[in-house]
């Protein structure tokens, strides 16, 4: 028995595993074809085209789609990203600090802003002037949008940075300290630059998330020159009583987000090779 070559033993029902695999795959294809035929037959293509792909409506959103809406989306996203990058790094350093209260403050901040819905933060920014009379976020609508996105993004970015800082080997700090660098100098010269390099891929993903969240600026009640892609699509759709602008706005998001996603995964691959 022991020296008998192990051949494919007949499986249940007398079918070989390979045969069963073929049948299973065949069934999957049949289900797919049936579903596609059903969609093709029952969908009201004329009405769909009228409502979601009306070319003259799409054309009317140009050039503002790019010159105003996309531009603003990028302003909110980049502004919020810079804000969250700086605050996130600060929070991560506090989170890893030797001083207890700094750690607690960072933990509380991170837990709150990761635990709350982004929409709620934006609503708070809208209602802040009620609580603090006379208070105004500098930069108007841009400032409010960037503040909201930055506050939320910082909580996530802080955790990204923390992982990066902790991933720098202890020997790096020891080498820097043994050369006479102070603890702060070693962090700035040796640890933080390496941590930032390591977190470039997750940070790119963070930026994509922030770019999508910039649609929440909608709830700040923006208008005119401040509208970003989602609000722009919504306004145009209402104006024409047609959903095409929403589709157009969606495609515009994807034009930016998909390449960034690919970039992030490529950077991830490169990191694996160099370290």
């Amino acid at each position: 028995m022991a020296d008998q070559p192990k051949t494919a033993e007949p499986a249940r029902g007398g079918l070989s595993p390979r045969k069963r695999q073929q049948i299973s795959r065949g069934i999957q294809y049949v289900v797919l074809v049936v579903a596609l035929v059903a969609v093709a037959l029952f969908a009201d293509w004329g009405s769909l085209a009228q409502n979601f792909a009306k070319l003259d409506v799409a054309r009317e959103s140009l050039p503002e789609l790019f010159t105003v809406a996309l531009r603003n989306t990028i302003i909110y996203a980049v502004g919020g990203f810079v804000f969250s990058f700086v605050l996130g790094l600060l929070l991560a350093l506090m989170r890893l600090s030797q001083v207890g209260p700094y750690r607690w403050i960072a933990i509380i901040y991170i837990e709150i802003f990761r635990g709350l819905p982004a929409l709620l933060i934006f609503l708070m920014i809208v209602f802040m002037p009620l609580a603090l009379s006379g208070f105004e976020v500098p930069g108007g609508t841009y400032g409010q949008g960037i503040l909201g996105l930055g506050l939320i993004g910082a909580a996530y970015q802080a955790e990204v940075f923390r992982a990066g800082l902790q991933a720098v080997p202890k020997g790096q700090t020891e080498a820097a300290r043994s050369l006479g660098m102070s603890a702060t100098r070693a962090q700035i010269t040796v640890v933080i630059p390496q941590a930032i390099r390591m977190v470039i891929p997750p940070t790119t993903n963070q930026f994509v998330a922030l770019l999508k969240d910039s649609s929440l600026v909608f709830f700040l009640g923006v208008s005119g020159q401040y509208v970003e892609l989602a609000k722009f699509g919504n306004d145009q759709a209402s104006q024409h009583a047609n959903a095409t602008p929403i589709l157009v706005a969606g495609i515009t998001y994807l034009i930016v987000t998909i390449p960034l996603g690919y970039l992030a995964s490529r950077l991830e691959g490169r990191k694996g090779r160099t370290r």
Partner: protein
Amino acid sequence: MTHAIELQDLHKRFGQNEVLKGIDLTVDPGQVVCVIGPSGSGKSTLLRCVNLLEQPTKGKVYVQGVELTDRDVDIDAVRRHIGMVFQQFNLFPHMTALQNVMIAQQRVLKRSKTDAEVIARENLDKVGVSDKCDSLPGQLSGGQQQRVAIARALAMNPDLMLFDEPTSALDPELVGDVLTVMRKLAEEGMTMLVVTHEMGFARQVADRVVFMDGGVVVEDGVPAQVIGDPQHERTRTFLHRVLHPEE
């Protein structure tokens, strides 16, 4: 005469584990002292206490007459004069070899970029890797990385050098290059405290060999005595294992 290094009743404990159990050791200027012993004997911890990478639990550390264990000592200032070379090299991976050797000169000694670069190139040349100035550590062999690390320490003009198993992470054929550099340093009169498993190096280059086991110094003397004619059974057993690993 002031000792280059003086350790008095040095103790170090990690939790329940007492790694150093009262070490007294001196190294005089210009001396090369090799510390040998089985793994876990506390040799690396001892070395790391000399520049206070580990804070001793008890006892005193003097370097050139300055008590480092005194809380008022500016440890960063003291460390500038103590070069350290690690088993894992610990080069900064985001900087080229040249930048690795320049950075502390600029940031710590406040040398100008031009001066730092001249000194860096001199030292890289001295350790035989001047052709690798613009390479990143990841592009260098272990032996080259370790020599860059030695150059990085030398560029600070240290008064003494600590070596923590500098060849233990190297492929066997690369060990010689690093030992040659260390031998050259010794000949130039550098004060060196070296934790090593290289018995040939210890025998030929060291002025003294210290055998440690179980957190204490078991034997301390000239190489011919400690390696050639050990007085303690523990030393003999260890040396026999190291020199005849197949038996």
